């Protein structure tokens, strides 16, 4: 199928039905993005009464298929082989594009992770289709079944709405951490089709000699994040943040310069070149609020800024602001939270008792 060929408009877009989502698996488990893809794909499919089709490649995937069904897959297409245990461009492209060409989906969503983009670019060319990269909003137009794919552009200042009118499937990669993990919601007649495949030798040219895993803090699942920036003044500043985070059941985050200085490891970094987070509460201590940081945390439900400068940029992105020096504010916040707890933990029990 390779060769220099053009993107081909399809004759009849009505021949193309259903929503494909690619579910990324690492070390035998779904990445969080897999559930995000199910969530957004399910919403789109149900809007136009079409099927959500989940694609899973790996070695032992029957449990994963069941999990996808719990979350609402109408159909799971699976391919199993020891050669599919790790992501490799050529075999994954071959299997997935075979499914696309055979099943003719209207829409195909893939996470905009590194492997996701690696795959999506190749599938688009192989299937002579259009793909919109790194979307943060996805919707479907009811009558035309055209995907409205929206992606930030010009340094995240603008949102471009991109359509693919005549080519199918309408492909998009979706930025991880943006779409919500959905509630479980089983479809009425789910179907699972897993086949054992043999990967052709010609597709096995990439040998993975070694994988060096990073110890990674997963901030994307945190309910509360306490982040620190250059305003902390020194590495020790993070000690107080760690203590506070621990008390309130949160994780510690950081701005890039704080990580650059080695005050905390890189895997805590939030922002454009770090993680994208959406906790219930985001506390930004001594962080100025430059756009590259904001991009990574602006979807947090509640944002509390702690800054010595009442006019810092972070203020306009915040629900709450404490103006003051972190050296005074953090210990005081810790103290007040501790005493609130002491005061209320007794009361809470009595509340439960009276409710029953």
């Amino acid at each position, binding site marked *: 199928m390779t060769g220099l060929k*053009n993107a081909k408009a399809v004759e009849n877009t009505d021949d193309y039905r259903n929503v494909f989502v690619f579910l990324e698996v690492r070390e035998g488990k779904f990445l969080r993005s897999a559930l995000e893809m199910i969530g957004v794909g399910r919403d789109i499919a149900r809007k136009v009464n079409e099927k959500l089709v989940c694609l899973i490649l790996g070695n032992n995937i029957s449990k994963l298929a069941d999990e996808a069904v719990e979350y609402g897959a109408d159909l799971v297409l699976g391919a199993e082989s020891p050669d599919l245990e790790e992501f490799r461009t*050529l075999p994954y492209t071959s299997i997935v594009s075979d499914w696309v060409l055979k099943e003719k989906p209207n829409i195909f969503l893939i996470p905009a992770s*590194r492997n996701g*983009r690696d795959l999506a670019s190749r599938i688009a060319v192989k299937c002579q289709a259009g*793909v919109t990269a790194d979307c943060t909003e996805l919707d479907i137009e009811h009558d035309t079944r055209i995907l409205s794919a929206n992606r930030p552009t010009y340094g995240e200042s603008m949102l471009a*709405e991109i359509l693919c009118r005549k080519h199918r499937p309408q492909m998009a990669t979706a930025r991880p951490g943006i779409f919500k993990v959905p509630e479980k919601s089983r479809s009425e007649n789910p179907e699972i089709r897993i086949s054992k495949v043999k990967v052709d030798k010609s597709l096995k040219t990439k040998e993975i000699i070694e994988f060096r895993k990073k110890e990674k803090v997963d901030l994307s699942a945190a309910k509360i994040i306490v982040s620190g920036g250059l305003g902390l003044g020194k590495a020790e500043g993070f000690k107080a943040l760690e203590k506070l985070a621990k008390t309130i059941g949160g994780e510690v985050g950081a701005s890039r310069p704080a990580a650059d200085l080695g005050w905390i490891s890189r895997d805590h970094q939030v922002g454009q070149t770090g993680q994208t987070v959406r906790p219930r509460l985001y506390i930004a201590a001594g962080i100025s609020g430059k756009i590259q940081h904001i991009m990574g945390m602006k979807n947090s439900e509640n944002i509390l800024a702690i800054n010595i400068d009442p006019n810092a940029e972070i203020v306009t992105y915040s629900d*709450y602001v*404490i103006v003051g020096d972190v050296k005074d504010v953090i210990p005081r916040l810790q103290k007040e939270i501790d005493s609130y707890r002491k005061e209320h933990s007794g009361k809470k029990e009595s509340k439960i008792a009276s409710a029953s």
Partner: protein
Amino acid sequence: MALEIVVMVKQVPDSQEVVIDPVTMNLNRSLTRNVTNKADENALEAALQLRDEVGGHVTVVSMGPPQAESTMIECLARGADRAILVSDRFFGGADTYPTGLTVASAISKLEKVDVIFAGEESSDSSTGHVGPGVAEFLGMEQATYVSSVKYADGFIIAERELEDGTEVIKMPTPVLLTILLNANVPRRQTLKRKIAATKQGYEVWNLEKLGMPPEWVGVRGSPTIVRKMRPIKEKERAAKRFEIDQIPDLVRELFEIGALKLEEMQ
């Protein structure tokens, strides 16, 4: 064995000084300076290092308007052996599909290709799709997001940076590699090299040279279109201000709205 190496580069608007036209919501190109995409400079450097070590030639291929001349000269001045600007009014307005097709078509006209380098993505469109697209058009193995490259006996050994760690991979040539931004330090252009580069010049290939139908390329060959652009509106936030002595009030409010929860505390 000498390697024939290709580097895909793109000229982009300088991201430090992007000016948006408030009426059209598009980039005001006349006010924006053009530079070579930074990750492509890292791709070129990786290519030059490989050539200097193993021997061979580095050919730079770029699709772009005539003003990409400065990028072509810059790549030669940094040490590329040959530069080809694929340029024609038909190529304008291309999305990633026809861009990949056009670049792949130009590369397929070269006598021999062992390794293709590209930047991980361009700073103006940030898709990362064109490099792998070219690999698919040419039926080649690929490795994306590469931070280091070695060559031995017909194989490339590369380190590939993923979200959760580093993959060390081995692939036979031909192969396409996309190089991470800041993976290396690009060598400087010297005045002497710059003069030589200007004298040497670069080639311009048009659509006729590629021999593709005009409806395959540029805006006509693009499956996607931009319907509209709008400024990203952030959620309005109250920025309710508290002085240090009011922290007890804030703490109470955070518990009351459920931002903090007693049952989650440790």
